[in-house]
């Protein structure tokens, strides 16, 4: 059936901000879908609140609404745009959930909008626990024994009947939020009450635990003529009990005979038919009893998912693109396979390599959280590696993780040889982000695979392969450099060992190994990801490296530039940098230069084979990058777009003679190196907070005394404020310097005067070496001291004076020109008492580039790429700075609800996973939209609780007064209450926790508070305020932890009283 001609305009809902379990894979799928539908001539309307996405680029969809993804706002978009259809299956759970609301509220019927791909009853059948179980019964498939309950009492009763341990799974939540394993009644009570609370339908399932069973996933696609194909099978290395997003996973399935695999395939097909997903992709999760092969169905997602993004990258089959085309009526046998061009999408990819995905965790950001993996997802990113064997892919994935490891052990890092046996066993038994290290240690000690299996439930097949890696490690160590002959060297490379590991094992250097390797002709070859195991010729240059005979990659004669991507997402380095890399590829395409992308992140748009001319899915280590450079001999390499990952390679690449284009590594160093930077600022007569660079504790204490407390301390060369602290005393310095890797390291520790209550300003600029254009000036809402990635900000500045703005512009231009910036530059300023201080200059793409580009309509990253290719700003037509008449507000989104016991207080270390943008002609409404998009529903009445530290009292006074004017009642703890009352603001007093009951927590739990404003100095200074913030978080009461943030929220509330929120496409603003 060809495409439908009865629909013309299609609305796509994105997934909103990056959060744990919903990351840039939905930008990848959404962007593919938008392109696919446009290609077919449909008018596409998009809504997504996340400005850092490619899908929200103004030229992609016909109308792009960067607006909150809520029922009300989408209704307004529908009213305005009157689309014929809605495609809800590409924006993750967020889009699916809001689509149900749209249908149930009658909006879709009212405006005659047809839901494509999956109707409401289908979504409910798949996602509703009870309906799904009933459906499985109809088709004779087994599900774990369970009970669906809506009350705590029923949950407890179910636990008793089923028998502990049990799994708690809330319905309609993301990434297993609120779920977990309960080993006893007490844990069940805790999980059930939070789970019931989190579920959209106050429904949880209490399920028999299949801990230790093997876990598999299949990606299924169906078209409107009921043709069904399986795109990929995935086997989890971690057994049941660890969320699949947190598991190490492998494609294809490794330990199933064909009979078992086909049984699973039949089940997946029966499920997609029974659930009734009309078209598109679904994901089905299975558990298999390793003892007897008994098969159970765990769940199915009737939409494109994280796993389908992984499956697309693992096989080369573009699931989202095909899903979009199937949604408008095409059938699989009408769509061509892009890769082979000759064959059709109606087939099942077969692969001739092994794919390993390893999740990336950031427990180091949340030291209070327990590093234990369970059924609720905690990882913030992932990396994928491709190899011809599991061993090779696994080791490549380990070094792609960028956690400082060179592979699976054998690098001298994170050593565990000091552990007692019981400690080792415990580390094996309890799944954690570090379990891989324990596996290595156990194998290194010669623990039997059977024993490790007993402890970990990881299938012995994986353990045997890991054992072979460790055996190889021991052999290389034994042989030493002299014994590292050609055959052993080649074999070790085939086992995925990096040069770094070989250097460590032989007591030599990475360079020596590289030289030896090349001398013996042991260099990698590159093979194609072609969907068909070489059965057909393929045309898409998507490569991975391996150590074999035949190389399939060839260098073209075209001018070519390589872009180094950002690797796995983590807090501090995420989608924003991928956005810049993608734009670099697009820009190169526009000027006829071949783009070569190198990246290891399967979630991203940059690793879509459509994005660049050539894609190398490879780890971003010096060795792997140099290998590609040896083959491709690019005319230039771009390191300034992918965040810290490629930047950390810059010097070594330059030393190796690689042509790095744009700002020179020396200029980057001049901005990064404290001493040189100081001299640089002095030369320009610019001011910075007093600062020093230290290596030892004594130096640190001396410097702090000289500068004067409070000071900001941090290690150099990090992104995302990793380990950054504000320190108020010698004790704080001692604590900081005692942390591992601080004192006596190669990289120094930086100490800066902390400017209290200063306004922070972020500037993105572009410079062609001579002329500088300011892209955007963003005024932070939160005061300096809170990481810029965690601050909300306003573009253009809303309180800065014209004089200051002019001063900022001049300083920015002076610095860009003095540094000789070619490309992008980001400057962070602090303004205190009308004085301008330079905090930091980064001559590279910043996290705010996509936000600025969306707000102003100026594609900074693309322009910067062209500048780096030698064009001038004048040639590019960028001669004046864009001034905008609307307001754009960026708000950060945090993962606090994922981690127990973590304080929600903001500080100099970045904690947010994503961002949203609110845009409006009115500042207050833009602020309100940003809040709404970040998931905060601002109260319109009720009681506001205020408890602020002394320094914030003055700042909060006016806002408090306005709240009273808006008929809110105020509640405050003694100090704040006294202050407000003395200043004529009516306010009730409530006990602090330490003052006896009833206290503030009682009020919160009784839902008597509509908004919490709570500020506190330093980290967890008082247990009281921590408990208040934590309670607000868990009870979903809106909370604000800075006075400046509170003031802006009040401004938003006031704006909302005057006017309703209206939606406008981004194309209207820019």
């Amino acid at each position, binding site marked *: 059936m060809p495409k439908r001609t009865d629909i013309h305009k299609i609305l796509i809902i994105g997934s909103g901000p990056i959060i744990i379990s919903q990351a840039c894979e939905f930008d990848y799928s959404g962007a593919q879908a938008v392109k696919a539908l446009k290609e077919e001539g449909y008018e596409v309307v998009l809504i997504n609140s996340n400005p850092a996405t490619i899908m929200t680029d103004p030229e992609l969809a016909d109308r792009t609404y960067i607006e909150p993804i809520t029922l009300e706002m989408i209704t307004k978009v529908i009213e305005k745009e009157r689309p014929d259809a809605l495609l809800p299956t590409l924006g993750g759970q967020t889009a699916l959930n809001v689509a149900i609301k749209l249908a149930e509220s009658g909006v879709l019927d009212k405006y005659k909008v047809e839901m494509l791909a999956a109707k409401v009853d289908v979504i409910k059948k798949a996602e509703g626990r009870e309906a799904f179980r009933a459906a499985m019964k109809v088709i004779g498939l087994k599900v774990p024994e369970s009970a669906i309950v809506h009350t705590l009492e029923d949950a407890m009763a179910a636990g008793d009947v089923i028998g502990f341990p049990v799994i708690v799974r809330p319905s309609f939540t993301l990434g297993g939020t609120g779920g977990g394993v309960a080993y006893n009644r007490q844990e069940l009570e805790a999980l059930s009450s939070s789970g019931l609370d989190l579920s959209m339908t106050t429904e949880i399932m209490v399920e028999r635990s299949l801990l230790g069973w093997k876990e598999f996933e299949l990606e299924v696609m169906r078209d409107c003529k009921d*043709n069904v194909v399986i795109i990929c099978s995935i086997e989890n290395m971690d057994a049941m009990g660890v969320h699949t997003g947190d598991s190490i996973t492998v494609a294809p399935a490794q330990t*199933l005979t*064909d009979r078992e695999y086909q049984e699973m395939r039949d089940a997946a097909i029966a499920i997609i038919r029974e659930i009734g997903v009309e078209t598109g992709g679904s994901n089905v999760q299975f558990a298999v009893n390793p003892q007897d092969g008994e098969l159970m169905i765990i769940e199915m997602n009737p939409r494109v998912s994280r796993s389908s993004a992984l499956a697309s990258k693992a096989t080369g089959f573009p699931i989202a693109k095909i899903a979009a085309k199937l949604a408008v009526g095409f059938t699989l046998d009408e769509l061509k396979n892009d890769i082979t061009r000759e064959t*059709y999408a109606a087939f*099942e990819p077969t692969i001739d*390599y092994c794919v390993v995905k390893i999740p990336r965790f950031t427990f180091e950001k949340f030291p209070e959280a327990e590093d234990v993996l369970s059924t609720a997802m905690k990882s913030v990113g992932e990396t994928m590696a491709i190899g011809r064997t599991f061993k090779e892919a696994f080791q490549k994935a380990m070094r792609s993780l960028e956690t400082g490891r060179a592979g699976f052990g054998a690098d001298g890092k994170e050593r565990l040889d000091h552990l007692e046996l019981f400690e080792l066993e415990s580390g094996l038994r309890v799944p954690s982000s570090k379990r891989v290290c324990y596996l290595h240690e156990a194998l290194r000690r010669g623990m039997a695979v059977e024993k490790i299996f007993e402890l970990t439930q990881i299938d*012995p097949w994986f353990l045997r392969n890991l054992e072979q890696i460790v055996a190889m490690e021991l052999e290389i160590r034994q042989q030493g450099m002299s014994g590292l002959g050609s055959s052993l060297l080649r074999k070790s490379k085939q086992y995925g060992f990096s040069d770094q590991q070989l250097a460590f094992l032989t007591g030599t250097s990475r360079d020596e190994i590289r030289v030896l390797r090349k001398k013996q002709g042991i260099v990698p070859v590159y093979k194609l990801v072609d969907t068909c195991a070489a059965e057909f010729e393929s045309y898409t240059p998507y490569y991975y490296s391996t150590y*074999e005979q035949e190389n399939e990659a060839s260098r073209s004669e075209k001018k070519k530039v390589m872009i180094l991507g950002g690797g796995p997402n983590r807090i501090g380095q995420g989608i924003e940098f991928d956005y810049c890399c993608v734009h670099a590829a697009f820009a190169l395409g526009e000027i006829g230069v071949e783009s070569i992308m190198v990246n290891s992140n399967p979630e991203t748009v940059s690793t879509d084979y459509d994005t660049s001319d050539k894609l190398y899915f490879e780890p971003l280590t010096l060795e792997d990058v140099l290998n590609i450079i040896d083959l491709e001999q690019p005319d230039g390499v771009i390191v300034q777009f992918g965040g810290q990952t490629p930047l950390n390679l810059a010097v070594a690449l330059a030393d190796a003679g690689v042509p790095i284009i744009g700002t020179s590594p020396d200029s980057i160093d001049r901005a990064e190196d404290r001493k040189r930077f100081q001299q640089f600022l002095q030369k320009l007569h610019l001011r910075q907070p007093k600062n020093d660079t230290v290596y030892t504790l004594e130096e640190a204490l001396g410097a702090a005394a000289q500068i004067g407390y409070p000071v900001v301390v941090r290690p150099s060369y990090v992104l995302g404020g990793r380990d950054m602290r504000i320190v108020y005393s010698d004790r704080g310095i001692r604590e900081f310097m005692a942390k591992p890797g601080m004192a006596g390291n190669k990289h120094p520790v930086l100490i800066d005067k902390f400017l209290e209550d200063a306004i922070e300003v972020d500037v993105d600029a572009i410079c062609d070496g001579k002329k500088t254009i300011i892209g955007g000036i963003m005024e932070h809402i939160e005061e300096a001291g809170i990481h810029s990635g965690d601050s909300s900000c306003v573009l253009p500045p809303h309180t800065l004076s014209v004089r200051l703005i002019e001063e900022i512009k001049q300083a920015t231009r002076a610095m860009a020109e003095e540094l000789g910036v070619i490309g992008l530059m980001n400057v962070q300023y602090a303004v205190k008492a009308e004085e301008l201080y330079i905090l930091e200059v980064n001559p590279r793409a910043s996290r705010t580039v996509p936000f600025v580009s969306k707000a102003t309509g100026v594609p900074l990253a693309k322009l910067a790429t062209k500048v780096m290719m030698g064009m001038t700003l004048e040639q590019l037509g960028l001669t004046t700075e864009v001034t905008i008449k609307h307001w754009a507000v960026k708000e950060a989104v945090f993962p606090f609800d994922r981690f127990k016991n973590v304080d929600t207080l903001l500080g100099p270390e970045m904690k947010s996973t994503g961002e949203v943008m609110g845009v409006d002609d009115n500042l207050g409404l833009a602020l309100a939209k940003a809040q709404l998009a970040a998931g905060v529903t601002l109260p319109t009445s009720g009681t506001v609780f205020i408890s602020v530290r002394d320094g914030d009292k003055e700042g909060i006074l006016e806002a408090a007064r306005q709240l009273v004017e808006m008929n809110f009642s105020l509640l405050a703890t003694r100090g704040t209450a006294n202050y407000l009352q003395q200043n004529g603001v009516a306010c009730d007093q409530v006990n602090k926790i330490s003052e006896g009951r009833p206290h503030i927590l009682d009020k919160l739990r009784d839902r008597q508070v509509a908004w919490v404003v709570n500020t506190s100095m330093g980290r967890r200074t008082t247990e009281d305020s921590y408990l208040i913030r934590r309670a607000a978080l868990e009870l979903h009461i809106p909370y604000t932890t800075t006075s400046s943030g509170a003031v802006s929220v009040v401004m938003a509330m006031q704006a909302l009283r005057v006017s309703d929120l209206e939606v406008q496409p981004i194309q209207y603003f820019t």
Partner: protein
Amino acid sequence: MKALIALEDGTIFEGESFTGRGEAVGEMVFNTSMSGYQEILTDPSYTGQIVTMTYPLIGNYGVNSDDMESVAVHPKAFLVKEYNAVPSNFRSEETLAHFLSRYGVLGVEGFDTRALVRHIRTVGALKAIVSTEDLDRDSLVARAKAWDGLLGVDMVQQVTCDQPYGWADNRPVPGTNFSTAQAGMRNPLKVVALDCGIKFNQLRIMTEKGCQVQVVPASADAETILAMAPDGVFLSNGPGDPAGVQGVVATVRTLLGKVPVFGICLGHQILGLAYGGSTYKLKFGHRGGNQPVKDLTTGHVEITSQNHGFTVDLDSLDKDAIELTHINLNDGSLEGMRHRFFPAFSVQYHPEHAPGPHDSLYLFDRFVEMMRSEMKKRN
């Protein structure tokens, strides 16, 4: 132990034997299935061939006694990228290496199988030799060249059963003239299966569908078959060139119109020849579990299991008598046909899967329906 793989065009790969010493000459083919190596190894259609798996990790789940498709291993040698020596699966009874050794089949690993596959894709299936004994490259290439190859050779006689047998309790039971019956089966349809290299799963499925199957050697003539008064005749898959089995073609020609006939793979090709058509050798064949086939009668696409190097020439068929029912979506080649006047139909692929998807099981139902409706007509 070092092993050399030499192709007739002079291409050489160097690998390691994982089954000890050995040597084999055969036609080099590749299979793209990611699972199912045991079923592939025990499929008689691979007789005379050296099979290379495109999936690199083989041996992972071992070998078990339930997944046998015949009583022997048929390829001359089995080539993989990496042999996984310690299997992990609850049904595993034996390692792949041990299994191959028991049947004297050479297993080689540790070379660039993808390069080999790309080579065959480009130049076509080639004569080849694999050896741990003769490591002289020139000698190996010369010996590969010198081998006669499979064209025009009757390979069926190498694999067809010596004695007739029936199928009961999931295993072959010697017996003639429907003397063997599955317990509990009522009013079974009687099917004579002409064994050109039959796969057990064909027998398992027909039995499941309520057929009592009598397997006979490929040499059985039409009179003998008809004398058993079957409700239908099943023509199995098998190895080699269909043009080499003229005897069977003649038998089938006689059966046409007298009894319902269902043919699979070689059985399909034999029907094509019996209809007066011709067959030819594909460049490198279809071997794998992901070939898309469109059923022209329903418009539905099924993912099929395939294993063939020869095919019926579409243009050679008399379209007035023969209806095309299935085509391959990848290359448009003929995948299924039925006779417009006689109760006979066939497919080029393997609806019995093993290994591969189960999408095409409906064809056995069609066979059953055909037999029942012919039975009605007779009564």
